């Protein structure tokens, strides 16, 4: 049997498919979150250098990874939407941005709270933290550009261009910040090369990464569904849903 995948690229059929998928991903997110936190707090041992403070990595590292992945995924869908004029992929890009920005903020916040006991200051102009901050600026730029444009089709395309320009620039920005950081040595003390990371620590972190993925997928699908209804309110299929009182 072959599944007609193109069927799902139309917002109408995707809407109901997404509605069925959300509980699955939400369930997986909750289960893996509980498992990850259990491993992180009760199985993983105390780090002999950083004490208990290292337990922040169980959210810091997944959040930092997600923030970067989500930007690339967002730019990818925005680019597809621009190239093939598919509404759904552009809606996806719009739906990903707030979640990506949230993870970027969490990565900055937890990085700062981790830095205080480790480096002695709340903020260090370290290459990673600085790049993460710039990434937050890029997310904010994307979202405010889309928010400023009233016509959704123009918002999609303009957002796609700025997302793609951002994606081309991210490696350049990261490289520049790295260079700048090595030039101004002194402030940064790298603590990321943990000399010996116990395997249970790594396990806890990986489970949390998985939980973040599941959460992101569930929440993005939820947001996409709202965006679909908002944008397609004039179409026949939404009117049909409306008649049956089942936009749920």
């Amino acid at each position: 049997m072959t599944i007609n995948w193109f069927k799902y690229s139309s917002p109408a059929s995707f809407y109901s498919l997404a509605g069925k998928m959300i509980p699955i991903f939400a369930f997986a997110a909750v289960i893996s979150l509980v498992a990850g936190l259990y491993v992180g707090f009760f199985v993983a041992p105390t780090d002999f250098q950083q004490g208990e403070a290292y337990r922040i990595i169980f959210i810091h590292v997944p959040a930092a990874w997600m923030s970067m992945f989500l930007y690339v995924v967002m730019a990818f869908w925005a680019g597809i939407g621009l190239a093939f004029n598919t509404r759904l992929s552009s809606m996806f890009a719009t739906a990903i941005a707030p979640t990506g920005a949230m993870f970027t903020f969490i990565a900055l916040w937890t990085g700062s709270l981790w830095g205080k006991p480790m480096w002695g200051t709340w903020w260090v102009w370290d290459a990673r933290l600085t790049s993460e901050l710039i990434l937050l600026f890029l997310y904010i730029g994307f979202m405010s550009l889309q928010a400023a444009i009233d016509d959704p089709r123009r918002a999609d395309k303009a957002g796609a261009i700025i997302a793609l320009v951002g994606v081309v620039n991210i490696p350049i920005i990261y490289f520049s910040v790295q260079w700048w950081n090595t030039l101004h040595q002194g402030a940064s003390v790298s603590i990321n090369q943990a000399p010996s990371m116990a395997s249970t620590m790594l396990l806890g972190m990986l489970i949390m990464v998985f939980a973040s993925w599941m959460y992101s997928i569930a929440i993005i699908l939820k947001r996409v569904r709202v965006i679909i209804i908002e944008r397609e309110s004039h179409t026949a299929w939404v009117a049909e849903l409306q008649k049956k009182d089942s936009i749920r």
Partner: protein
Amino acid sequence: MNWSSVSDFFAMGGYGLYVWGSYVVTLICIVAEIWLISNRRRTLEKQYSLIRNINIRRDKK
């Protein structure tokens, strides 16, 4: 087991402020995100049920 008591667990070896500060803010962010989307959705649902009621009333006439 890493912790001998509940208070021990919350103290986090003296790093309680930092560890719980991270986890609590993350929790707030996630709850806020879910709440915001649900809210946006409820507004839509309300709009739709209003339109629907109007249509039903018109059909009855």
